[in-house]
């Protein structure tokens, strides 16, 4: 198994909080459009794909959905509450130490290894809660002896990670996740770029989505040790939306597109 750099790149999207079920998910199409818009006439072969797990999460949330339906008597309010739960509820209700979460992680890992087996260079774009799953799975893959040799990117099932609206800066996620897996000696660097809108409440946890400045999210994981082997950057973006709308507005943001373009072409 080795990555063949002449093969088309694969951008694998792992979604996060989302309304609807698996049939409604099309973020990989949005990422395809975004990357095409940044490539212009550059002849780069790539495909996009999506790892879906929403139905598993919906199942885990069903008891909360029922509870809200009991509480909210007004039909309009009921619909709003249900959507709100779908949107951000799974960030807090989807426990990451459960069999459901383990199934999601295992499925994502198998998806990545399938792309690796085919030899395609793979780049992960992870949104919201999906960024936590991506963080866990990529770091887990780095512990496997045959993978992520720091001297050769051909052994890397994931060439780079882009996170969008990640809640990894919140204590509920980062209190147990203290550091990234160090790649050891070598000169190749694993790249992680984290994009966040300053008013995105899922990033900040602030209920009114107040504007944030100087907020360290992914960069908390930077280490001065040269053996870490990661390049980690936080990139604030202005999606032009506010509050929860900002959380789902990354998919067509030009800065995100430029960052993805830079990652897959370098």
């Amino acid at each position, binding site marked *: 198994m080795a990555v063949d750099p002449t093969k088309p790149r694969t951008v694998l999207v792992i979604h996060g909080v989302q309304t609807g079920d698996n049939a409604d998910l099309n973020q990989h199409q949005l990422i395809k459009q975004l990357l095409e818009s940044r490539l212009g006439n550059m002849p780069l072969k790539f495909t996009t794909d999506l790892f879906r797990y929403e139905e598993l999460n919906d199942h885990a949330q069903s008891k909360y959905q029922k509870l809200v339906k009991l509480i909210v008597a007004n039909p309009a309010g009921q619909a709003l509450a249900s959507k709100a739960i779908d949107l951000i509820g799974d960030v807090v209700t989807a426990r990451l130490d459960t069999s459901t979460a383990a199934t999601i992680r295992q499925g994502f890992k198998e998806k990545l290894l399938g792309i690796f087996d085919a030899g395609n260079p793979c780049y992960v774009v992870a949104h919201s809660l999906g960024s936590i799953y991506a963080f*866990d799975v990529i770091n887990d893959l780095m512990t496997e002896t045959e993978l992520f040799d720091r001297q050769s990117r051909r052994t890397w099932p994931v060439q780079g990670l882009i996170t969008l609206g990640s809640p990894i800066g919140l204590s509920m996620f980062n209190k147990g996740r203290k550091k990234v897996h160090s790649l050891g000696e070598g000169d190749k660097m694993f790249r992680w770029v984290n994009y966040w809108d300053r008013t995105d409440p899922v990033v900040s946890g602030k209920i009114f989505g107040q504007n944030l400045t100087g907020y360290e999210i992914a960069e908390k994981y930077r280490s001065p040790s040269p053996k870490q082997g990661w390049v980690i950057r936080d990139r604030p973006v202005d999606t032009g939306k506010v509050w929860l709308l900002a959380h789902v507005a990354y998919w067509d943001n030009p800065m995100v597109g430029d960052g993805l373009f830079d990652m897959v072409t370098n």
Partner: protein
Amino acid sequence: MCPVIVYLIHHPLRLNGEGQQVCGPSIDIFSALFSHVTCHLIGDRRESMVLFLLIPFLFLTTIPAHSADTLKQQASAAIKKFFQVTEPIAEFQGRFVDTPPEHGETCRVHMDFSESGQEYFTITGEYTPSTSIGEGMHFDAPDDTFVMVISEDDTLILEQHLRDNVSTGTRTSMRLHKQPEIITVTIRETSRLLFFSSTQVKHCVIPLE
């Protein structure tokens, strides 16, 4: 000259070095500053009247700034004493009981006091991701996140609040209870994000050799 009022208030949950409850003073900085500023705003001549009115008000509205540094230290000392361990790193294998089956059957209690400022006392299960050191007490957090340490005979209760801001954070309480042949570690963790909140309770039973 305006005085700076310092209130000494008693907090019932502080412990001495032996793990027993004691009462101790803590300084209410908020009250002191409020009084000082108000005094400047209104003027010295009315100082005594203002203070007379403020004192009952401040007693009712004080926000105590506990000397939580000692709570954090006491928490780590109480954990080591409870398990009677001298090594900086220890691990105990157990089983979940009265715990949702989605967390699995087996649990592990981890204690790592090897690296100053990075200590932790946590529980993991078979589905905890490999990147996570688990849920529990994290001693790399600020001192004032430790809000409770109660040690009584065979029971130890710890509580830590990690606040991202007013609407988001986690509250973790752990209750350790020692019986003749087992130790039961109960962890209750409430996570809040915006207007959502989720609580989970897990009981890990460790057999004693």
